[in-house]
């Protein structure tokens, strides 16, 4: 719950660091690309627009693939999916992690023990293989992919929130609230969570990056939704032509790299802005 | 009063911190003092008065990137250590001047056996063999009153109590029989009964080794009981210096006087009846980077006059032997 007056200063703080400014610029570009994909490339990413295997920086900015599809169009439409998966998966992860971690950290006791056992389970299963199994069994649709990513990645966030909630709960202002007779939910939501928020925001921002990498990995292995153009799928498809058309794997890879980099940079800047002790 | 020649003689010491790229501000300003062998000098003041900065400056332990020794000399037995390079300074630290810190819980390496942490210092400065160093560290642990020193030497800090850890820190400091021991709030983190034990230990070893002790503290009771001379600091400057008897018989600087009067005295009440409110010092300590030209205590001082805001008072010797930096100290004190 950042107070209204803090919001513009937070943005300014992020932009004032070189990492934050670069990150913001990159991310804004990717967002604009995603927003205007259908304006820039009205024919869509699957349309064959010209001859196959055209190298980049010629007739087509990023060249064409083996079926003569415009790679630039794929990049633009792929941006939509990457951002969508990153955002929605993170939202689910943050919600799940905050609720489980918050309740476990606040109440302790058997709730905590049970919650920690469950998170331990989710941290032990090999996350990516777990996601592969889930998508393979349930079918490669976008909601399944997002769900799989969320299911295998929420546990670390829950543990982080739990640890933070526990430490804030041990502070004396919470005891002061208890001694005034304040209710549990009010203490947890109004008093404790705002103090944990900066941690959640920072961890969440990094989670977006991880989710994008996850999705790219899944669709690279052929577990993407076949009706959707994604960066991972493009790289996977380009593998067979790696000897002749290097750009087919290189360019979408750079797209993933820059997007993830942008989010990580913003995450670092957020961490510095919200968490001054991490500075120095 | 003390006839012997001082071991450590500090003149006009000024330590500055970086405010911005090019500007600096003083945290220790124009401080003079000296310590003789077998003597304890207490440096007193509230948090932020610069007493800890002063201690760290003597050993040049402040981070070089944000701080500097801007002026002054630190004479250690005729050698000016303020001008030494980092490499030369290393030979002084732990050998000629040692330091004991406030937090016994964090000032030892958690992953190293305590005996080894003592031996390390001996090996560094005297280049003796590991066996010899180990033997001497056990002897040192015995000296600082640790029971079963040979066993304890093989333990890790987390296995020892706070008082025991502080004894280890003292043993490290004394490993090479230093000429000067700086004790920076050595007992603040300890319980009262343990505090007395540790201070008693420092006092005993001071005589045994013949070193000078600089005791940095905020506790005036500790000063009265364990020091021979006292120096009061405020906003980075020395405001009063006197021997303990003189000082506690009636401090002359308005700040020292107010500080002493603000300490609760249970025995006085019990033996004298009515409970008077304690003396309060109004206002707050000014930030060190925003000091005006005059006396930095002026705006909190009951006796301040216009001149106090304009002119920096210099240290002057009063008739009772106290040295005080106050323009009005001589008037009606």
């Amino acid at each position, binding site marked *: 719950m950042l107070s209204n007056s803090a919001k513009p200063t937070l943005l300014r703080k992020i932009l004032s660091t070189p990492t934050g400014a670069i990150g913001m610029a990159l991310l804004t570009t990717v967002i604009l690309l995603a927003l205007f994909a259908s304006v820039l490339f009205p024919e869509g990413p699957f349309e064959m627009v010209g001859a196959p295997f055209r190298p980049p920086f010629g007739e087509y900015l990023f060249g064409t693939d083996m079926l003569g599809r415009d790679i630039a169009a794929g990049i633009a439409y792929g941006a939509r999916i990457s951002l969508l998966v990153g955002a929605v998966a993170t939202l689910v992860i943050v919600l799940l992690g905050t609720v489980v971690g918050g309740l476990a950290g606040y109440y302790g006791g058997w709730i905590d023990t049970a919650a920690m056992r469950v998170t331990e389970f989710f941290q032990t299963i090999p996350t990516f293989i777990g996601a592969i199994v889930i998508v393979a069994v349930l079918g490669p649709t976008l909601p399944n992919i997002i769900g799989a990513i969320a299911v295998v990645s929420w546990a670390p966030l829950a543990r982080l929130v739990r640890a933070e909630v526990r430490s804030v709960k041990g502070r004396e202002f919470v005891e002061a609230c208890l001694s005034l007779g304040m209710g549990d939910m009010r203490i947890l939501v109004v008093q404790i969570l705002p103090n944990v928020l900066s941690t959640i925001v920072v961890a969440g921002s990094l989670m977006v990056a991880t989710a994008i990498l996850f999705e790219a990995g899944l669709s690279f292995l052929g577990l993407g939704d076949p009706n959707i153009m994604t960066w991972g799928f493009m790289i996977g498809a380009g593998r067979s032509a790696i000897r002749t058309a290097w750009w087919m794997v290189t360019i979408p890879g750079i797209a993933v790299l820059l997007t993830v980099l942008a989010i990580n940079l913003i995450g*670092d800047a957020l961490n510095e802005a919200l968490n001054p002790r991490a500075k120095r | 009063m003390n006839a012997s020649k001082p071991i450590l003689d500090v003149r006009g010491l000024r330590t500055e911190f970086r405010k911005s790229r090019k500007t600096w501000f003083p945290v220790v300003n124009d401080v003079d003092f000296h310590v003789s062998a077998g003597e304890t000098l207490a440096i007193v003041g509230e948090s932020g008065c610069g007493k800890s900065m002063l201690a760290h400056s003597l050993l040049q332990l402040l981070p070089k990137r944000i701080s500097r020794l801007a002026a002054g000399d630190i004479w250690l037995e005729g050698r000016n250590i303020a001008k030494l390079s980092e490499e030369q300074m290393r030979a002084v630290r732990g050998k000629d001047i040692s330091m004991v810190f406030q937090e016994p819980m964090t000032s030892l390496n958690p992953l190293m056996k305590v005996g080894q942490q003592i031996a390390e210092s001996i090996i560094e400065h005297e280049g003796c063999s590991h066996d010899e160093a180990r033997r001497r560290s056990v002897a040192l642990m015995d000296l600082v009153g640790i029971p079963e020193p040979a066993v304890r030497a093989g333990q890790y800090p987390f296995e020892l109590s706070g008082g025991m850890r502080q004894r280890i820190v003292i043993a490290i400091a004394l490993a090479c029989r230093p000429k000067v021991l700086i004790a920076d709030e050595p007992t603040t983190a300890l319980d009262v009964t343990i505090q007395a034990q540790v201070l008693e230990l420092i006092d005993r070893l001071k005589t045994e080794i013949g070193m000078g002790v600089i005791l940095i503290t905020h506790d005036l009771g500790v000063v009265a009981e364990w020091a021979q001379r006292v120096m009061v600091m405020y906003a980075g400057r020395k405001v009063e210096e006197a021997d303990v008897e003189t000082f506690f018989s009636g401090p002359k600087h308005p700040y020292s006087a107010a500080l002493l009067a603000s300490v609760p005295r249970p025995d006085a009440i019990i033996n004298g009846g009515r409970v008077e409110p304690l003396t309060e010092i109004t206002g707050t300590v000014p930030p060190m980077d925003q000091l005006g030209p005059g006396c930095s205590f002026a705006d909190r001082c009951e006796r301040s006059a216009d001149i106090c805001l304009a002119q920096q008072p210099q240290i002057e010797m009063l008739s009772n032997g106290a040295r005080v930096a106050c323009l009005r100290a001589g008037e009606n004190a």
Partner: protein
Amino acid sequence: MWFANAKYVLGRVLHGIPIILAIVVVNFFLIRLAPGDAAQVLAGESGAATAEYMRQIREQFGLDQPLWLQFVNYMKNLLVFDLGFSFRHNREISELIMDRLGATALLMGTSMVLSIGFGILLGAIAAVRDRTLLSHVIMILAIVTYATPLFWVGLMLIIVFALNLGWFPTSGIATIGAPVDGFEYAIDVAHHLVLPAIALSFFYMALYTRLMRASMLETLGQDFIKTARAKGLSSSNIVFRHALRNAIIPVLTMAGVQVSAMLGGSVIIESVFGWPGLGLLAYEALFSRDLNLLLGIFFLSSILVVLTNAIVDVIYTLVDPRIRLNGGRHA
């Protein structure tokens, strides 16, 4: 002391047992969550499923029996490590997995050593040389690497070092037709290992570098470092004897947590480099829709994580006496 140590590690291993049981349960129900007939799902959507195979599956999973009985049977089979039969490969799944385990262990082990080793080294350098050009270069490289998808790194390495420069082979674990034992074989495998191991360790090296730098900076700011300086120790002595060991602890913790993620990474890297380990097996299973095999791999890799975590715990006790002597990480 040795006893306390062993007891602690044993405790950590036993701790993993309920987790493995939970994975068994999840495995069992996951198949039944799938849309449609479980046998159909297990057989895959391709028309390749013969009537014989379908019968086998129904028999193995006892799909016509009540759910609890199915579960009991499933558990019984797992206890003797019977993971079922893969018709695509025409072999027992447990045999298949065991065959591939060594290759994955080799890849993972090499990558872990590389990433932890270089991560600690680079992170420590960046911290000790804080605010210098060297530190900035290390940290910029780390943050870029940290954003790079594993499979893409693999493909780029192939393009540059295998296809263009021709220094390393593009895929496989050994040259076909070359000797299969002795020193020459080892060299051949090592030669094949270079690119996949680097590709897999890249991301984690960046992660550990960032973590190590932060941890080292924090350690260098602690009181006991000040004590060490006040003793007159040299800065190299302070860094090596005092700071490094303390700073490594959070990196080790993270390395333990990352084992499961790294296994996922090895699926990708193995499939990129055709490295015949568990990951490639999983990739093949995915392509042939051999779900039963996939679940077997999932189960085994979970056990692998539990075991690796136990190894990390042992290392942990060696580094930190507080755990060794108190028998708990939260002493």
